[in-house]
């Protein structure tokens, strides 16, 4: 038995005792859904083979030496390893990023909702997913390592508004941040924030050329990387607002529906390119639904199960009521928490989908306007 810490075991047990809501877990539904997945899994072997054959005809160029790259071309677009390794042996992620990636992001047009203030210019070569997100808590750019088990690094880039000086205690990593000096970043002052206990998470903050503070948060980094990787990321950050092209337009949503967040993520996992555009909505107190746009195809496995659990399908929340349609090689789904009745003002899930115009899989046809 583990040492009890401050009565933690007893107190945890206390959290799940007493009056709890009636369970919605449905064993019969699990068996029915499981049977359907097993059938799809058997059929999927054939479908995947066909998709891969089609994919080799697609052309996905990479930015040589960190130059511009297009957004993923479709559900199964092939990718290649980036060239021109950096002096450290690492190289930019094979995704359009930053000012150098002018082919993938447009200059900010002043009224779009997904407009990062900065972007990664360099990332360790195992970072294969990049997400731009804007929600109630703020906006940032996040890079992930997909396709591996266990703890994999996460990199987050954030720009503080002009005049805002972040407090040391204002960190996401530690209850009480500890500040320590860091080497200058491109000639500007910089410092580290950690929790002072030698853990594998670290924040590097530095002043940008326009005086704003920037921050890169690195989680689950190997010990050998905890200084050099954040510093290299910081040195190559591209500062400047730009607009993320989005693969769908939305029009005519009821005024009662409010947007809670928008994100666009693109990735290349095990040779497969993919992207996901998500819009979160609130239809009222504790009533949430989301619209997701992806290529119409089989998504790559982002989080493989640990050894012994291979073959489990990607996560899918079963209580989501998902209604989808496809067009121009893309797929849009509306997923509802709790009761689908929340969508009645729009005419139900089908009414929501009617308000979405899919723009296909060619990023040159996408829009930087939101909702579009």
């Amino acid at each position, binding site marked *: 038995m583990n040492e009890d810490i401050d009565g933690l*075991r007893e107190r945890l047990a206390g959290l799940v005792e007493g009056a*709890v809501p009636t369970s919605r877990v449905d064993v019969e539904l699990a068996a029915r859904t499981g049977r359907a*997945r097993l059938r799809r899994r058997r059929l999927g072997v054939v479908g995947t083979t066909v998709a891969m054959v089609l994919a080799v005809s697609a052309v996905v160029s990479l930015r040589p030496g960190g130059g511009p790259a297009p957004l993923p071309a479709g559900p199964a677009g092939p990718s290649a390893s980036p060239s021109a390794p950096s002096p450290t042996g690492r190289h930019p992620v094979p995704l359009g990023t930053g000012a150098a990636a002018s082919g993938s992001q447009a200059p900010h047009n002043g009224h779009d909702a997904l407009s990062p203030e900065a972007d990664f210019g360099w990332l360790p070569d195992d970072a294969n997913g990049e997400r731009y997100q804007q929600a109630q808590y703020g906006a940032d750019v996040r890079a992930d390592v997909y396709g591996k088990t266990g703890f994999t690094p996460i990199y987050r880039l954030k720009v503080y508004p002009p005049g805002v000086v972040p407090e040391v205690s204002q960190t996401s990593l530690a209850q009480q941040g500890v500040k320590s000096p860091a080497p200058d970043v491109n000639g500007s002052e910089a410092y580290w924030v950690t929790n002072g206990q030698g853990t594998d998470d670290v924040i590097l903050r530095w002043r940008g050329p326009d005086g704003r503070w920037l921050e890169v948060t690195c989680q689950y980094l190997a010990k050998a990387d905890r200084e050099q990787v954040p510093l290299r990321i910081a040195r190559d950050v591209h500062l400047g607002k730009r607009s993320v092209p989005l693969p769908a337009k939305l029009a005519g949503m009821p005024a009662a529906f409010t947007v809670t967040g928008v994100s666009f*993520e693109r990735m290349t996992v095990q040779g497969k390119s993919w992207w996901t555009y998500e819009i979160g909505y609130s239809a009222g107190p504790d009533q949430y639904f989301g619209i997701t746009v992806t290529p119409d195809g089989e998504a790559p496995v982002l989080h493989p199960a640990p050894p012994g659990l291979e073959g489990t399908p990607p996560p899918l929340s079963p209580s989501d009521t998902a209604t989808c349609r496809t067009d121009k090689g893309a797929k849009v789904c509306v997923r509802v928490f709790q009761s689908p009745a929340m969508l009645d003002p729009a005419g139900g899930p089908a009414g929501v989908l009617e308000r979405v115009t899919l723009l296909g899989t060619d990023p040159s046809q996408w829009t930087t306007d939101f909702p579009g």
Partner: protein
Amino acid sequence: MAKESRDVDFTAYVGSRAAWLRNVAYLLCADWHRADDLVQESITKLYTNWSRAARAENLDGYARTVLVNTFLAEQRTSWWRRTRTGFEAADGVATGADLDAALDLRQALAALPPRQRATVVLRYFCDLSVEQTAEAMGCSSGNVKSQSSRALDALRGSAALRAGRAGG
């Protein structure tokens, strides 16, 4: 016949363990509705892998591993879902100020990053060893130790455990 046997065994097992899995799920996600979703998805996965699961030496451990991995995977996908719960910010971490303001253990637990929360639940609610926790989470023992240490430090610093100590 095989399918019928599979369904009977599966239904019997899940029927006896659903409440326990739901409790673990609740401690992981701090939301009973989400806990139901997690359990529902986990038992569906369990069904699809029942032929392997039923042969496992420790079926409870297998089910628990599926549940924890479903929870952790969800943290890095379906981003918009988490915005409603405030679990999005540096891998789901609330700020230090949020932790200081936590008034009870549930809030303090919910404010931990997902992996730290999972290590606390597995080690101190499920009473697993470091090695068993590492196996369930698909990571190294060292990772479990560091995650546990950070989580306990955060919980100790929060009002929740300070109150626990004060109260004996």
